[in-house]
C-alpha cells in the first residue's frame, strides 16, 4: 500500500516533469485554437494596429455567398474523395503483396523505396514535379502521348482541367508509402493459423482476402482512412509551391484560400471563420467514416 504522502509526491513530480509540455501545449496549441475561434467572430486587420472588431456571425454568413470559397470547397472535397480511396487501395494491395509468402527478391528494398517519398520534403517533391509538368517536361509529354490536348507552349499545370489531377497524382505518389507501412503492421498482426484453417476449407485468393483479411484489417483501415482524410482536407504546400491556387482557381483549396485571405488580404477574422468551417467538415467526415466501417463489421 503506497502511503498518501508518497502518492501526492508522485503526482507532483509527474506534474513538474510534464509541465514544459503542458506549458507549450497551452501556449502554442490551445490558446491559438481558442483565439482563432474568437477571431472568427471579428473583423481583424493584423497590421492596422487596432484590436479585432466584433461582428458576430457576419464572417460565417459571408462564407455562404463567397463564390471563391465555394470553388475552394469543391476542389478540396474532390481532392479528398479521389485521392483517399486510391491511396488506401494502392497501399493495402502493396502491403498485402509485401506481407504474403510470395518470394519477391529485394522485398526490403521495395519497402524502403515506397517509404522514401514520405520522408522527402513535400516542397522538394513539388518543385521537382513542377519541372516534370512543365511544357518540356517528361510527364507532359507522356500525357500528350495519351491524347491530352494541351495548348501550345503550356505544361500540365497551366491547364485548368489537368492542374488539380496533376497535383492529386503527385500527392498519391508522395503519401501512399506511409499507409503501406501502417497496413503492413496491421496485416502482420493477423494470425497465420486463420489462413491455414481457411485454406483447409477450400478458400483461396480473392475470396480469402475479402472474407478474412479485410475484416481483420478493418481497424487499421479505419485509421488509415481517417488520417488520410484529415490530411487531404488540409492540402496546402503543393498548391503554394506549384500553382498558387491557379490557373483560374482550379487548384485553390480551402487552406490555401484561407492563407491568402489572412496573410495577403489581411482579413484574419474571415480566415479564422473559414478554418472553423473546415474543422466542422473534417469532423463530420470522420464521424461518418467511423460509422460506415462499424456498419460493415
Amino acid at each position, binding site marked *: 500500500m503506497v502511503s498518501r504522502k508518497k502518492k501526492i509526491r508522485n503526482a507532483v513530480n509527474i506534474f513538474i516533469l510534464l509541465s514544459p509540455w503542458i506549458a507549450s501545449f497551452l501556449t502554442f496549441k490551445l490558446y491559438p485554437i481558442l483565439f482563432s475561434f474568437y477571431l472568427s467572430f471579428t473583423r481583424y486587420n493584423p497590421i492596422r494596429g487596432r484590436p479585432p472588431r466584433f461582428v458576430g456571425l457576419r464572417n460565417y454568413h459571408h462564407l455562404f455567398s463567397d463564390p471563391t470559397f465555394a470553388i475552394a470547397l469543391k476542389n478540396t472535397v474532390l481532392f479528398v474523395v479521389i485521392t483517399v480511396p486510391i491511396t488506401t487501395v494502392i497501399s493495402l494491395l502493396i502491403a498485402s503483396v509485401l506481407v504474403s509468402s510470395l518470394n519477391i527478391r529485394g522485398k526490403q528494398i521495395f519497402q524502403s523505396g515506397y517509404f522514401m517519398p514520405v520522408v522527402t520534403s513535400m516542397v522538394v517533391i513539388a518543385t521537382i514535379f513542377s519541372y516534370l509538368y512543365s511544357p518540356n517536361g517528361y510527364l507532359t509529354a507522356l500525357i500528350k502521348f495519351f491524347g491530352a490536348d494541351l495548348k501550345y*507552349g*503550356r505544361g500540365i499545370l497551366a491547364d485548368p482541367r489537368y492542374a488539380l489531377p496533376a497535383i492529386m497524382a503527385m500527392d498519391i505518389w508522395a503519401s501512399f508509402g506511409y499507409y503501406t507501412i501502417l497496413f503492413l503492421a496491421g496485416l502482420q498482426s493477423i494470425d497465420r493459423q486463420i489462413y491455414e484453417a481457411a485454406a483447409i476449407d477450400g478458400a483461396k485468393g480473392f475470396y480469402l482476402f475479402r472474407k478474412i483479411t479485410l475484416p481483420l484489417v478493418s481497424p487499421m483501415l479505419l485509421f488509415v482512412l481517417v488520417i488520410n482524410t484529415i490530411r487531404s482536407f488540409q492540402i496546402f504546400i503543393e498548391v503554394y509551391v506549384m500553382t498558387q491556387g491557379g490557373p483560374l482557381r482550379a487548384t485553390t483549396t480551402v487552406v490555401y484560400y484561407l492563407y491568402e485571405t489572412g496573410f495577403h488580404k489581411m482579413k484574419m477574422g474571415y480566415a479564422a471563420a473559414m478554418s472553423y468551417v473546415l474543422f466542422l467538415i473534417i469532423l463530420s467526415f470522420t464521424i461518418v467514416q467511423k460509422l460506415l466501417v462499424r456498419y460493415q463489421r
Partner: protein
Amino acid sequence: MRRLLLIVLAVLLTAVVVQGKVVLKFWNFWPDKWIKPVIEDFMKQHPDIEVQIERLTWSDGFNKIVTAFAAGDTPDVLELGSTWVAQFAADGALLEVHPGNMLSRYNMWDPVIYKGKYYGFPWVISTRILFYNKDLFKKAGLDPNIPPRTWSELLDAAKKISALGDDIFGFGIKTGQYTTWQTFLPFAWSNGASVLTKDWKKAAVNSPEFVEALDFVSKLTKYSMIDSNLNVRQAFMQGKVGMILDDVGRIKTFKKNAPDLNFGYAMFVRPDKLWSKPIQFGGAEVIVIPKNTKHPKEAEMLAKFIVEKNSAMAISSRIPTLIPADKSVKDDDFFKKQPGFCVIMNQLQFTKTPPAHPKWVEIQEVLTEYITQVYNGAMSAKEAMDRAEEEINEILEEFEEEYGD
C-alpha cells in the same frame, strides 16, 4: 535572502535607467556580414545610438513582418518590398517621412507615396530587360547582334524561332500568382495604358491602349512557352527559348550557371508607334519606419543613412544589378565597369511600378484571372477587360467605403 533579492533588483534597475543609449532595431533581408559595416559606420557617427540588426529570410520574412505588426512588436527601421508599402501605409502602420531635397537626388519614389505623403525611402532598385539566345537567332535567320526593338520585330522573331522545332519556343511568357501581371503590364504601360485612372478612383483596364496590348501578347502566346518564372528561365538557360524578360541580375547568373549559353540582352521592346517608350517593371527595396517606434527622430536619421549611396553599396557591391536609388550612381566608376551598365541605366529611365493602392492584391487577382482567360483563348481581350473593369471598380468602391476620407 529577501534582502539580497532587493539589492540585485536595485542594481538591475539602475543599470537599465543609466543605460540612456537609444537602441534601434533594424530588420532587413540581407546577410549580417554585409550590413554590419554600414551599421558600425552609423554608430561611429552617432555614439549615443545603438543599432541591432536582425535578418529576415525571403521565404517567410513577409509573414514575420505581418506578425510583428499584429503583435505591436515592430522594429524601428524596416526593409519592405516596394509592392508591400501601400498596404502598410494605408493601414496607418508606417510613420510619415520628410525626404526634403532627397526627392531630386533619388530614383523611384512612386511606391512610397500614399495620398500625397511619403512613407519610406527607396534603397536599391532594379528592373527587367530582354534576354535573347544568339544561337537560336542565327538558326532562325535573324542577326544575332540586332535584338528586337519593337513589338512587330518581337513577334517576327518569335515566329521564326518557334518554327525551328517542336521543343523550341520563340518567347517565354511567365505566369504565376504575381508573375502573370508583372510580365504583362509593361506591355500595357509601354502602350500608354495603365491599370487605374490617375486619381485611382476607377479602373482603366478596358482602355483601347490596354486592350491593344493584351491583344498583342495573346498573339504572342502562339509562339511562346507559358509556364512559371523558374521553369521559363530554366528552359531559356537550356537553350529552348528564344527570348525572355528577366531581372538585370541574370546578366551575371546566366554567365555563371549556363556558361554554354550564347545570350545577349537589350532594353525592353516598345510598340511600333512614334513616341512610344519601352517601359518595364521597376522594383525597389524600401526602408520604412513603423509608426510605433519609440525613437522616430533617430529612426529617420538611420533610415536616411542606410539609403545613401555609400551604405547602399553594401548590397550593390555584391549584387551589382541592385542599384542604389541614389542618383549619383551614374557617375560611379564601380558601376560603369559592370557588364550591361548602359542597358541597365537606360532601362531605369523607363520604369513604372504598379499603383501603390492598398487593395492592389485584390485588384491584381482580377487582372490575373482575365489575362489568363485571354491567354487560354477563352475570351477576347476586349471582353475580358470589360469584365475586369467592372470587378476592379467594385473593389475600388469597397475600398472608398472602408477607408474613405
